[in-house]
């Protein structure tokens, strides 16, 4: 384009234009720019294009302010775990944590001495009728709920900390970026990035409650991160993963008013955060119905010719996406209002999407 060639040669003019747009130009410079714009239509058009870019680039900012205090708290948590500061600078609770770890290590040494002269390759912890707290070889602490079973190598030699779990447990994992802490539970892998959280098994569904830090949950190709005050429910039989927020608040609520449980087996177990399985099933049926309705609306709004053409879609608080394309704001607002979308969105398709809410794929609608 001749237009570009002509003016890209003119470096000074661009410096002035940029200054003019950012209100950095002095009176003299502003006069030069204004005269240049008036010179001819091409200049005017060019300046208008720059102004458009100028104004639009302002809009790329995130309008939601991040929670700096929460981020700082997470950061402190992270640095605390790998702290190398001298004991004199430590808080009492840091010292307490170290004492606890030493005690834990002592327990393990004792344990291994008891069993045989030769160190066992695998440590197994089994909880009886009451909950029991154990310290793992790396110093991480686990509280096994009644009848839960955990096994891990007696010594974590490799650069992995692999643990197998059956049942429910609370974890407080020592941060060590070089050795990820990975728990296998059912067919799911939970990778920990230094944190405390709880894993529960409820009728084959796996639930991960995060208290601090970040946890990554993986099953085959699918993977999702769980953040503090979030709970992820991974059903055994389908890929409908549910993410819920503010778990702690809910735990407190439910412990105060324990739900009556008809199943005798279930009532034996203490699961403060446990949501009865039938609620999950009901929720699932309901959310699935909503998802179907959203997909149908996409068709009736004329955004897709029919349901088969929808490969993936997402309806969230901030956006409506269909097959990778952001859809008109008017339709987004309409559907958002119709389905009361706030923090939790609806996601459909096998594309890897990050977000909070209800996730479905084609298998859910077979």
């Amino acid at each position: 384009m001749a237009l570009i060639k002509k003016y890209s040669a003119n470096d000074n003019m661009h410096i002035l234009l940029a200054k003019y747009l950012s209100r950095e130009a002095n009176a003299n410079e502003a006069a030069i720019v204004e005269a240049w714009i008036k010179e001819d239509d091409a200049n005017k058009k060019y300046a208008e294009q720059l102004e458009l870019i100028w104004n639009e680039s302002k809009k790329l900012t995130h309008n939601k302010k991040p929670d700096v205090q929460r981020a700082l708290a997470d950061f402190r948590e992270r640095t605390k775990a790998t702290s190398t500061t001298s004991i004199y600078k430590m808080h009492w609770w840091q010292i307490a944590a170290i004492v606890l770890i030493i005690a834990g290590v002592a327990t393990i040494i004792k344990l291994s001495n008891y069993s045989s002269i030769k160190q066992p390759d695998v440590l197994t912890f089994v909880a009886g009728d009451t909950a029991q707290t154990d310290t793992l070889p790396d110093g991480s602490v686990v509280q096994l709920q009644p009848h839960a079973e955990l096994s891990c190598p007696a010594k974590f030699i490799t650069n992995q900390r692999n643990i197998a779990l059956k049942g429910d447990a609370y974890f407080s994992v020592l941060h060590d970026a070089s050795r990820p802490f990975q728990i296998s539970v059912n067919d799911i892998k939970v990778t920990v990035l230094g944190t405390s959280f709880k894993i529960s098994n409820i009728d084959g569904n796996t639930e991960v409650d995060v208290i601090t830090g970040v946890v990554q949950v993986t099953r085959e190709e699918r993977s999702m991160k769980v953040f503090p005050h979030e709970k992820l429910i991974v059903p055994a039989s389908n890929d409908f993963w549910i993410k819920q927020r503010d778990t702690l608040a809910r735990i407190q609520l439910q412990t105060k008013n324990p739900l009556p449980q008809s199943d005798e087996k279930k009532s034996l177990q203490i699961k403060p955060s446990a949501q009865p399985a039938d609620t999950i099933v009901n929720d699932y049926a309901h959310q699935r119905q909503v998802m179907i309705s959203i997909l149908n609306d996409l068709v009736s709004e004329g955004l897709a010719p029919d349901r088969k053409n929808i490969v993936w879609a997402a309806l969230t608080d901030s956006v409506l996406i269909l097959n990778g394309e952001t859809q008109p704001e008017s339709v987004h607002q309409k559907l958002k209002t119709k389905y009361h979308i706030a923090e939790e969105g609806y996601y459909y398709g096998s594309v890897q999407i990050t977000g909070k809410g209800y996730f479905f794929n084609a298998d859910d609608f077979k």
Partner: protein
Amino acid sequence: MALTAEALEDIFVSYYESLYGYAFSILNNELFAEEIVSDVFYRLWLKRDKLKIDTSLAGYLYKSVYNACMDNMRHDKTKQVFKRESLNQLTNNTLNAANGLHAKDFEKNLRNALLQLPEQCRTVFQLNRMEELTYNDIAKRLRISVKTVEAHMSKALRRLRVSMAEFLTLLIVLLWH
């Protein structure tokens, strides 16, 4: 230069929002942006005793966030989605032209165009546009001269104009008729 834990927390509080905004403007994803900024600080903390920063700390932080974002885009699966979106860009723009252009399309194009800018050029542009810092403040923060800021600003503007040329022509045609 060695950093105490207190000093690092001060830096964290002063720069977190700005760096988060920067990461978000590149990745367009809250979770990734959060994680990347947090990682950059964590790595800074790990090597706080043997830190060597030739330019300014702010410059170092923006650069680290920029590089981490680029890494993320290179390695992450979202990249595939992102790429596919950019490939569809032109055809969709043409399609949309019939129905009127959407602000979102423009935004997407601009985001892509910004990705083509070199690191410092982008940082300067970002600080001016998204945080509305003056040339003088940017120069101070990054410890570069005001002349360099001027040069980066004009370069950014010119490059964005070239990257957006096709889209702009379409848009201007629509506005004119």
